């Protein structure tokens, strides 16, 4: 049975860490809510309470609508793709094929690079007409693609960059899960005459479920948190087709210097994440029932 925590120890153990946490997580979230009810003051515009004006602006903001659509597509696209690739990679690396060490290196390397470095590498890779992608397409007689300069491909190009960087990390988690699959289970299935595809679907897949949940949560958070490549590669363009929510917050606040609207967008972001968290919690609970 645990002892009661003496007040002195509580202050030492919980005081500093928790106040730091509150100061940079809870306080700013509440502060954003408060600031979202005020205007953006400057030397030519005195500070004033505006009520829900900033929230009305949210609804009239066409760029924001585009940004939210982009963010949704980005999350829904990158997460399953990264997970699917990660499972495939893990299976390859876990196989008894030759060269698995090199394979693992190739898959995992992008994970070690900063997103900003990844963005530089891909910026040159994508450059229409002169980048490596165009050089390769040229070998096969195909026209070059304006990856980042077309509204049809820019978001997909950014998504692929994100998947390239993340899949290797997720592969590691699947690798761990695969290695913990008991061999006798597989052997038993084999004895019953199941093929390797059957074994994977019936035996291995269910055991990967906790990893998938963990990875999906991680990928979801990253989909909202990581916009470095947008800043470097497209600045959200062309025509806002690759702008993500956090990038938009950055642009509105620090480039356009509208701190009040930035705060309002922050509130929106926190609410969205909150809803997603509740949704995930609900899914997790349901999943737990089945097991």
């Amino acid at each position: 049975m645990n002892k009661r925590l003496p007040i002195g120890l509580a202050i030492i153990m919980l005081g500093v860490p928790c106040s730091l946490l509150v100061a940079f997580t809870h306080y700013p979230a509440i502060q954003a809510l408060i600031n979202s009810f005020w205007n953006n003051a400057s030397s030519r515009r005195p500070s004033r309470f505006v009520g829900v004006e900033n929230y009305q602006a949210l609804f009239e903001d066409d760029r924001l609508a585009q940004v939210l659509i982009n963010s949704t597509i980005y999350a829904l696209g990158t997460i399953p793709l990264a997970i699917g690739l990660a499972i495939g990679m893990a299976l390859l690396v876990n196989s008894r094929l030759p060269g698995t060490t090199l394979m693992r290196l190739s898959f995992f390397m992008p994970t070690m690079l900063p997103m900003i470095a990844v963005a530089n590498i891909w910026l040159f890779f994508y450059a229409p007409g002169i980048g490596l992608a165009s050089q390769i397409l040229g070998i096969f007689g195909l026209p070059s693609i304006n990856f980042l300069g077309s509204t049809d491909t820019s978001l997909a190009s950014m998504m692929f960059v994100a998947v390239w960087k993340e899949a290797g990390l997720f592969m590691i988690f699947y690798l761990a899960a695969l290695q913990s699959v008991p061999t006798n289970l597989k052997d038993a299935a084999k004895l019953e005459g199941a093929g390797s595809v059957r074994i994977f679907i019936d035996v291995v897949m269910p055991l990967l479920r906790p990893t998938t949940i963990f990875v999906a949560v991680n990928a979801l958070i990253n989909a909202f948190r990581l916009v470095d490549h947008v800043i470097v590669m497209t600045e959200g363009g062309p025509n806002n087709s690759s702008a993500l929510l956090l990038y938009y917050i950055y642009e509105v606040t620090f480039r356009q210097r509208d701190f009040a609207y930035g705060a309002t967008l922050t509130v929106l972001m926190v609410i969205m994440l909150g809803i997603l968290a509740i949704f995930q919690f609900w899914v997790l609970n349901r999943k737990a029932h089945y097991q």
Partner: protein
Amino acid sequence: MSNGLNKILLSTFAAVIAALWALPFIYSVWTAFHDEKYSANFQWDAPWTIANFLEAWQAAPFSVYFFNTLILITIILIANLILCTLVAYAFVRYKFRWAGFLFALIMVQLLISPEILIVENYLTLSRVGLTDTIIGIALPYLTSAFGIFLLRQTFLTVPKSLDEAAQIEGAGAWRVLWNIYVPLAWPIYLAYSLVSISFHWNNFLWPLIVTNSPEVRPLTVGLSVFATVDSGVEWSLVNAATLMTTAPLIIAFIIFQRQFVANFMRAGIK
């Protein structure tokens, strides 16, 4: 169909996939070691050079950036290890009012990471006058919900009997922590450190917003400043700088590949 043929096909497929996956990175390395005029015209026999690295190193204070990044990750890592240990220990070993509620509050940071709150965190920092300092970059990250979660999970696996035996021998709270809990969690500390180092080595948006002067810029921000494109961009130079700034992590990874992977797995799975 013979098993051998199957295996050859699969091996070829795997090799092609792995090669394609590595292609952008390999090309970037190749470009960094060749003259600018080859950067958009691949040639097998183009002469190798390290001139790009020398020029990039001269053109921006990368040594300062390296030093800043080292300081930054050291501060964050030490603070993380100490603070997260204390919180996790308090939660595992003691009971107190609202413990569950407090833990839930802490876990909020997992979801709403400091990057999401850049607007208000920047205002906070500028109110206390810590913008453009390394401490300022580190502040929001000193306590990590992920670290607390990980250590709490680990501490929970420490057998109660060990703890009680130590108490009977007269060990106080700190002795128990230091002699029983910390040693048993050693692999997790290592795993967490790796995750933390690679995360903060790579972090960009928040340092970009907080820093102005080269004296405080970490590598990522320095690299982005170096690679901006108002006038002609030399790809080979940018690629050299990109490689240079990530080299320590890459080299460390190649050398300690197995341990890295094992530790990353541990950090995620528990």
